[in-house]
């Protein structure tokens, strides 16, 4: 039918390939490499946006067409892409975020001049974009896995791009190992589907789950949950995430946190809603539970961080949890046969997916600028940056408000939709299960409030008050491209926040493909000004209206000012210092101190270890100097992964004894094998 999206998409992929080639061609000339590699990436991403939007608007049919892009080589492989709404939606996501990041990188990479090889960087950046796009578009499990592994591989190289640092190397290894284990699960899952459908084509997989026996079906469910869960960073499979995201260069972190972990979400949606058929109840329950746990624990661990990028990484875990809550609810509705509510929940999940992509990328870009300016990731050594890097500070503030799910920005909208679907889910079943919905909602509220607390801390300690270190004191605003990239995402945040009804229209084909309902008309009231729940009476919200109303109310305080306080003056003075000789940065409230109440309240979870060393001459009340350390250990790290790792090493070292170097021993192995075979095999 419509060739336009197709051709545009092929152009996009071609563009990424071109980017790889170009950056490799100008390997020696780093400026040229930077310009070519990321410039081309920008263009390709733009094409991708155009392609996906046109596709979603015009080709709003669930019938996908599949396009062969390479001749097939080996049985079962077909290098074909599909253009169905879900793929197009996620392509939109990757292109949008990719565009902003590419623009940002044009400036950000200047710090690498003379130090690193930007040609390689650009090549891998483009290949990640290409591989991710292919993951979203692949129409064949084999092809999907190829793209998936390519993505993991390029990401590995990007994570350990600054490989002089031990940290980056280890982070890369951890990431790749976890990702590969996940891939193993995916392969097995696809093999199960392959067993049922007899092929690797996605069109063959469609609703194949209903034909499968319960055992393999549930096995496939769990395998996919683990496989995609690792990539998405679901607790308890998340350990690579807070290690790998900070270690990478910030534009890469933005890429990973914004886009790459969404491939996991894409996979889950694709498999559970497209392939698996009507789900049993416990699937949805599992997903909802896991989502809730991830959300709450993610934000709690984030609160404990004073490494800015690690904090953001933990927030990614939290947001993935929120997305999963939407998906889980949708699955439960599909089970109880409420496709309409299922579509609502799905919309909530997808909406939050793109929201998180946008504001998390924005935050990481801001963090990148800050880290570059202050030469540290430790918030305790930042501060006062709002004066020194105002634009970055503004964008970061917008991102913070958005991620804390505060009106009128996009985070609030998607969480509002999630609340709506949860609340209306209460009526769908009469079993005790339905208590999960409001409880999940309560946990979501807790998450939101904690996130707000966390970002008050992050923003306040990083950008406000006095600079806490020399570097912070003499920090400078990032260059034009960086700021441009951030402002682009900021604008998207605002638009997604203020015009939800218009955006929901893009989701219509997706929901009608996966859950059988197109809701945008139901969801938009008062000709698009107001976003309503699935039921007309279910409640409604209008971020735009609230924003306008706030503007209308602005005259009240201003008027009061004009009436009463016209002739008052404003004086700049020192902060009240209890009569000391001025406040020094050391007297400011620290990030650790800020999160202490939470740490104390959730002591059982964090198990904080604190070491205090005092030195005093005469009285314990006048310490000469005092050293305070406080560590929080992740329970999964200490309880699961470390022992496992230890076990593997132990066993391997033991096994080396087999190859102890004695020829006699080797002869005995062969001898015993022979004798055993003679005795039993005959």
């Amino acid at each position, binding site marked *: 039918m419509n060739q336009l999206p197709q051709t545009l998409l092929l152009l996009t992929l071609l563009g990424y390939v071109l980017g790889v080639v170009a950056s490799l061609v100008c390997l020696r000339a780093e400026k040229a490499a930077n310009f070519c590699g990321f410039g081309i990436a920008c263009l390709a991403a733009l094409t991708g946006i155009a392609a996906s939007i046109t596709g979603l608007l015009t080709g709003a049919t669930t019938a996908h067409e599949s396009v062969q892009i390479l001749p097939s080589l080996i049985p079962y492989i077909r290098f074909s892409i599909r253009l169905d709404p879900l793929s197009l939606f996620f392509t939109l996501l990757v292109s949008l975020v990719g565009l902003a990041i590419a623009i940002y990188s044009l400036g950000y990479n200047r710090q690498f001049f003379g130090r690193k090889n930007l040609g390689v960087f650009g090549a891998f950046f483009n290949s990640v974009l290409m591989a991710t796009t292919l993951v979203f578009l692949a129409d064949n499990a084999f092809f999907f896995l190829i793209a998936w592994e390519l993505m993991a591989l390029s990401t590995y190289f990007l994570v350990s791009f600054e490989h002089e640092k031990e940290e980056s190397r280890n982070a890369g290894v951890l990431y790749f190992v976890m990702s590969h284990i996940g891939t193993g699960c995916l392969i097995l899952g696809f093999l199960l589907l392959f067993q049922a459908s007899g092929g690797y084509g996605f069109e063959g997989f469609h609703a194949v789950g209903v034909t499968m026996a319960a055992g393999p079906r549930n096995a496939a469910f769990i395998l996919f949950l683990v496989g995609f869960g690792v990539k998405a960073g679901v607790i308890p499979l998340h350990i690579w995430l807070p290690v790998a995201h900070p270690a990478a260069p910030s534009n890469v972190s933005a890429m990973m946190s914004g886009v790459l972990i969404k491939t996991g979400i894409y996979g889950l949606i694709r498999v559970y809603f497209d392939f698996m058929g009507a789900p049993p109840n416990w699937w949805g329950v599992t997903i909802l539970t896991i989502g809730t746990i991830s959300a709450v624990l993610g934000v709690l661990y984030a609160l404990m961080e004073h490494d800015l990028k690690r904090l953001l990484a933990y927030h990614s875990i939290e947001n993935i949890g929120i997305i999963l809550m939407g998906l889980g609810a949708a699955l439960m509705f599909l089970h109880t046969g409420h496709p309409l509510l299922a579509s609502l929940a799905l919309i909530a999940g997808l909406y939050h997916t793109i929201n998180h992509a946008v504001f998390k990328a924005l935050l990481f870009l801001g963090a990148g600028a800050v880290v570059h300016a202050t030469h540290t990731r430790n918030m305790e050594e930042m501060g*006062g940056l*709002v004066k020194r890097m105002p634009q970055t500070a503004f964008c970061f*503030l917008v991102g913070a408000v958005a991620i*804390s*799910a*505060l*009106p009128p920005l996009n985070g609030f909208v998607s969480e*509002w939709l999630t*609340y709506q679907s949860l*609340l209306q889910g*209460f*009526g769908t079943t009469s079993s*005790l299960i339905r208590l999960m919905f*409001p409880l999940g*909602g*309560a*946990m979501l*509220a*807790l998450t*939101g*409030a*904690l996130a*707000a*607390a966390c*970002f*008050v*801390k992050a*923003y*306040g300690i990083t950008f*406000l*008050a*006095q600079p806490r270190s020399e570097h912070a004191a003499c920090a400078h605003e990032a260059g034009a491209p960086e700021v441009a990239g951030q402002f682009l995402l900021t604008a998207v945040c605002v638009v997604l926040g203020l015009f939800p009804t218009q955006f929901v229209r893009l989701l219509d084909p997706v929901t009608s493909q996966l859950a059988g309902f197109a809701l945008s008309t139901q969801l938009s*009231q*008062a000709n698009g000004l107001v976003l309503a*729940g699935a039921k007309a009476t*279910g*409640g*409604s*919200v209008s971020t735009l*209206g*609230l924003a306008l*109303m706030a503007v209308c*109310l602005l005259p*009240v*305080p201003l008027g*009061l000012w004009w009436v*009463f306080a016209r002739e008052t*003056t*404003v*004086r700049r*003075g020192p*902060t009240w210092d209890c009569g000391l000789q001025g*406040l020094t940065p050391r007297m*400011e*409230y620290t990030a650790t101190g*800020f*999160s202490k*109440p*939470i740490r104390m*309240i959730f002591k059982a979870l964090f198990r904080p270890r604190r070491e205090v060393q005092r030195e005093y001459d005469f009285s314990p009340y006048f310490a000469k100097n005092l050293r305070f350390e406080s560590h929080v250990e992740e329970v999964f790290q200490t309880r699961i992964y470390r022992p496992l790792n230890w076990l593997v090493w132990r066993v391997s070292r033991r096994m080396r004894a087999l190859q102890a170097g004695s020829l006699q021993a080797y002869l005995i192995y062969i001898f015993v094998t022979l004798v055993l075979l003679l005795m039993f095999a005959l």
Partner: protein
Amino acid sequence: MNLDLTAIVLQTVLLLALAPLITGIIKNWKARLQNRRGPPVWQPYLDLRKFFGKDMVISEHASWVFSFSPYVVFITALLAGLLVPMVTVQAPLSLFGGVLALVGLLALGRFFLALGGLDPASAFGGMGSSREMTIAAIAEPALMLAVFTMAIAAGSTDISRIVAATLGPDWNLLSPMHVLAFAALFIVLLAETGRLPVDNPATHLELTMIHEAMLLEYSGRYLALMEWGASIKQLVLMTLLVNVFFPFGLAVAAPAGLGFSLLTYGAKLLVVAGFVVIVETTNAKLRLFRVPDLLSAAFVLAGLALLSTFLFQ
């Protein structure tokens, strides 16, 4: 549903006018219960007037965030107020958002309040913000759960609809759901409005104060806006409490019975204020790390309320 401009204006005025009075009344009654004469009930108006007249001293470390916060706090409180039905069942802005939007708006205000506390680089501000955000965080689930209980019963998150549902024929005051949810919300109210036993609005002792600590660096009209915003928020929460659980007397149609509804509304507010006063005078302030116990009690109450909707039907 079109927007009724007069209603918006009237309710705004009502909010602005009534909020300081409630604060004053509570102060006055507390004093009387403690055998002091106490300030007159209109004292807050005088304070506000005076604050507005004063020159401002702004910390040299503070940035634009510091000056921006008071407006946000004030306006979000007002907006939130426009989402709750005060004297009519139909809240003027109910189309623009239900109880979720209300909670969100209050959270937005709190967010900037806390930032404003951190901005001047004083340790008190940071401490205040930290505690404020912590308490809010643990109060949130209880609040939401209680609200959900009502919302589920009404099948809507729109407060006007909830009120209408409770106002409906099958309304009985003493259904366990109502009682439990009310108790939960009341505790949350104490926490959110910085009342004893969570926070002591009257103290300026560094180590105990929460809300005041954040305002320490504010002066002049900013302080006025902050105080006013705080009292509006308190009024809004009280209104939510009384009108959701005891909606009788609310005017269904705009002009008719406004007077009566106004009277009943005032009476209900006074009762709640009395409750608050009694609680404040009979309780000592809790240690910060005991507050979670209180709020988790609220959470449990709300959970029970939810369970009761599930059991008794």
